[in-house]
């Protein structure tokens, strides 16, 4: 199952840093997603794209996580040579992350 099935997402940018929200559709998925959508898992997903640290902020009241990815945008929107210099499309890439089946993780 892809993350896309249970959550939605939007990317923001500040300089060379990207933040990607992950917002669940159903509150009951929060604790489980918190256990599987770890910083390490997100770092692996963006391997080769994100050079810096990855931080996860938790917002249980909103059923959301906020991932902050440093050194992620090829120098930032004003210097990057990338087609999508803002990294706006990174949220859709994160949603393509394959999650383990529920029950396979404690």
């Amino acid at each position: 199952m892809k993350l896309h099935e249970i959550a939605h997402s939007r990317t923001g940018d500040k300089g060379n840093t990207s933040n990607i929200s992950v917002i669940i559709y159903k509150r009951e998925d929060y604790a489980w997603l918190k256990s599987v959508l770890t910083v390490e898992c997100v770092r692996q997903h963006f391997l080769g794209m994100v050079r810096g640290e990855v931080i996860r902020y938790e917002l249980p009241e909103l059923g959301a996580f906020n991932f902050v990815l440093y050194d992620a945008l090829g120098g930032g929107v004003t210097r990057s040579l990338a087609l999508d210099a803002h990294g706006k499309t990174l949220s859709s890439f994160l949603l393509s992350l394959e999650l383990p089946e529920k029950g396979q993780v404690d």
Partner: protein
Amino acid sequence: MSDISDVIRIGSGAGYSGDRIDPAIELVEKGNLDFLVFECLAERTIALAQLRRSRDPQSGFDPLLEERIRACLPGCASRGIRIISNMGAANPQAALAKTKAIAQSLGIKNLSLAAITGDEVSALLAGGEYTLLETGAPLDSIRDRIISANAYLGMEPIVEALDQGAHIVLTGRVADPALFLAPAVHAFRWDRQNYRLMGQGIVMGHLLECAGQVSGGYFADPGYKDVSGLDHLGFPFAEVLREGTFSVRKVDGSGGRIDQATCTEQLLYEIHDPARYPTPDVIADFSGVSLTEEGSDCVTVRGGKGHPPSGQLKVSIGYRDGYQGEGQISYGGVNAVARGQLASEILQKRFARWQIPAEDLRFDLIGLNALYGKGTESVAPAEVRLRVTVRSMSPSIAAKVGREVEALYTNGPAGGGGAVAQVREIVAIQSVLIPAELVKPQIHLEKI
């Protein structure tokens, strides 16, 4: 009906400089607004505006100012809606003069206009030693290439201009959410040291500042997140109560949607630590925000908090950083990816001969790997588009890269089409912090 001092409505008429204008007109006509805010300054916009101003002293404000003001001012003036905008960009006083001339040409009378300056702080930086926040390098490393340096002002000069009776307030660089906090502080006489209220006001501004992005724009994902009426997306307004609670709404009959999901996406947009969102007026804390759906397309927001600001203002510095050259050409049909890859290899060999550093070059096959550096699907695309970009201090090298892509027509793989080439000067942005007390905003008032 409540008195204006107990509840106000603040509309969001633009989320960026090039935004749609018809939803702003709809808000003016049907939103029963007290204030209309146009947020039109992205990170780099002001440096580009400064370049225009250096060629023409009467320019340097938002290129769509005239169209927006002409479309919205008559309705605002007749209804008593006051306008706040950073469309002043690099020249708020010229924006004021232009707006005044437009108002006069429309026959509008008894109008008070304010321009706010003082965000341009190049002179303050001239003598000092500062460290660039993004790279840690000294400011001296870019000093001779600086185009503009603008401090993010807080709400204070806008509140003061409104207190003095301004119907239109035009600013340069101001923290985006402060454009929305200011009318609430003005209308309710909120205590600036009440950081709960300041934080809640910043939450309101943050949700509204990108206009359609909270009311169903930038949200639709067919089959998962459906949004109706995106061809007539309604822009949002906040109905704000004196005690700080507000609801995010849009005009009845407009397209789009406002619910917990749209508001949560926008609440976290461009946020790092949700508990510490720094602004000049307050370090806002979004971590306790609650979003309650009240019927259709109405979300009530509570729980924003805050802490005293740092006393430092962020200064955004625009500087010349060489040139970017770019060329594109498409390959389609059978074996398209192989021909696109061959084209890429040919150019990599040629550029190596001219010693263009590899880190200043980028090769993408749009349709295959331009966004994520690798394909996410195994199906071969029906077409790919080679895109080659270079960053160089030399405009001739930047131009040469585009020409080389075009030359693939007659010298490259079979069947390339639709080649384009361009070169542009790079205006880059970095930031420093300066003590807030050094920055002295000024208010220029005029009446007609």
